[in-house]
């Protein structure tokens, strides 16, 4: 089985995410009326294979597999997939998996691009528990932001249907919009706390002499992201920002995160060693 690498395993996981995406389209077309477990098990199988892929890579590296863009992306996706499985167990949240599947599949296909996972050079200069903690908390934060965006999408869809008096809003087995709003807020808050920890731990990691922490492209990007989410949370909680704008903000912020994640990584000396 030596030919069966962690990338093959991840490819299989992405295939399951793809199957789940196709099934999600059917669920969406049916107005999320039937409450079945098919999608949950498709994603769960994907997450199991995904975990296996990451474990294989981790065992090869003897460290947390977050050393290049492929690994960072798969870690982010894994956090998102796992969190969606956990949240799907809440009453009426089973359809969360249907909303998460397209995100997992799209980014999963992107992560499989060979250029994101170049042949390994010398051992990374920085390694150890602190570095792993920094990477893991930061990527889990992105996972929480991703899931918040998914919940926000569910909220906006249900809100639109209720406003437009569509029967689909009544027939669907989605949670109440108040609950979706609360979950979105909580996920953004959890993501924000994790990102804060990730940034704080990152500031303690060794870096090139004479270069301040905030001069690295990725660090600046992360700090900006931190500020965006902080503004969003504060405006929503203390200054009466509407739930619609908060939900839209969660979706836009995560979309920007996804679109700029790789670029900032490429321009970051600290994350390209």
């Amino acid at each position: 089985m030596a030919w069966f690498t962690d990338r093959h395993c991840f490819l299989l996981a992405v295939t399951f995410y793809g199957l789940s995406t196709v099934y999600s389209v059917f669920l969406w077309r049916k107005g999320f009326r039937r409450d079945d477990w098919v999608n949950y098990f498709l994603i769960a199988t994907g997450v199991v294979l995904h975990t296996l892929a990451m474990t294989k890579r981790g065992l090869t590296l003897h460290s947390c597999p977050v050393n290049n863009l492929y690994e960072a992306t798969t870690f982010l996706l894994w956090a998102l997939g796992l969190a969606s499985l956990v949240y799907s167990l809440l009453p009426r949240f089973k359809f969360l998996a249907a909303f998460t599947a397209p995100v997992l599949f799209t980014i999963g296909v992107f992560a499989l691009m060979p250029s994101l996972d170049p042949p390994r050079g010398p051992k990374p200069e920085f390694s150890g528990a602190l570095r792993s903690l920094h990477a893991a908390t930061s990527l889990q934060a992105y996972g929480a932001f991703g899931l918040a965006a998914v919940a926000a999408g569910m909220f906006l869809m249900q809100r639109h249907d209720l406003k437009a008096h569509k029967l689909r809003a009544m027939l669907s087995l989605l949670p109440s919009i108040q609950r979706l709003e609360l979950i979105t807020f909580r996920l953004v808050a959890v993501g924000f706390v994790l990102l804060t920890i990730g940034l704080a731990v990152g500031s303690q990691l060794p870096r090139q002499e004479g270069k301040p922490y905030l001069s690295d492209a990725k660090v600046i990007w992360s700090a900006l992201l931190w500020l965006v989410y902080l503004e969003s949370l504060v405006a929503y909680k203390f200054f009466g920002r509407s739930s619609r704008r908060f939900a839209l903000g969660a979706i836009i912020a995560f979309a920007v995160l996804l679109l700029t994640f790789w670029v900032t990584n490429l321009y970051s000396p600290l994350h390209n060693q």
Partner: protein
Amino acid sequence: MSVVVIGLSHRSSPVALRERFAFAGETIPDALAALRASGIASEATILSTCNRVEIYAVTTLATDAAFAELKKFLVTHHAFDGALGDELYSFAEPHSLHHLFKVASGLDSMVIGETEIFGQLKAAYELAFTHKHTGARLNKAFQRAFNVAKHIRTETNIQRGSVSVMSAAVELAEKIFASLAEHEVLVIGAGETSEKTARALLSRGARGVVVTNRSPERATALAAELGGRAVPFAQWPDEFSKIDIAISSTAATEHILNRATLEPLMKRRKHRPLLLIDIAVPRDIDPAVSELDNVYLYNVDDLQSIATDYVKLRQEEVARCEQIIGEKVAALLTQQNTPR
């Protein structure tokens, strides 16, 4: 020996005739005893509700003879001296079992898919069972009917959704709010429909109710009836910071709530979701308020349209239910006809 049914229902006869044949609950055991003593039936159950009166019986008589005797029993028992034609229906196996399963599943009810009949049928069966008027044949038929009804309830959409304006309003509230227990209801104008809607919301756990009406006496009386509090009509806008659901049904000829009034109130509410149910005609609430964020406005037509769509949805499910019933009846008859 087979199961037969004879009776009349809302489909076959007017209420004036149904009430002539209705059995009072306490008289049913004696009626069943008389029926069995007459030799027409060895087992029997009587179902008597506002929408139907039916006798389910196990008989050894030939079908036509059994129907004639059962009809005679009904007429004699109720001292009915009028003429009876198509109002009285009768079925022999397998149609009698098919009918029983349909009744248990709510498919023969006035509101398709309603569940009240299930409880009524169960009570009728238990009464007959307790007084030992049922035997192996009816026990099996009724038990199977209850199982089929449960199966249909879980496997189809026949009981799904709200088919009345009041229940549609309650369902809407549950789509917006995580739990009704944390939300208070404001009733503006103490009309009958708003009272029923408020009652329905309270029965689903709404925290409380505030009533306002141009006539303070009526508001106080309704508030007392609903276990809530009354506020003067001029002060109802002040309640908007506390309540989350408002039901309006005043006789006003112009909008009593418009966007300009609601906008500052929403700020005071810190943009919490607000469900507005306008069941007044002419409408009490300016439709423009629904453009405001977190405001969900439904008028009587919107609610009626939801209820009508649900009725259509239930009707679409009937064919599926009939198929399930057909299969279950066939299975029961095969089981009964297979020698052990």
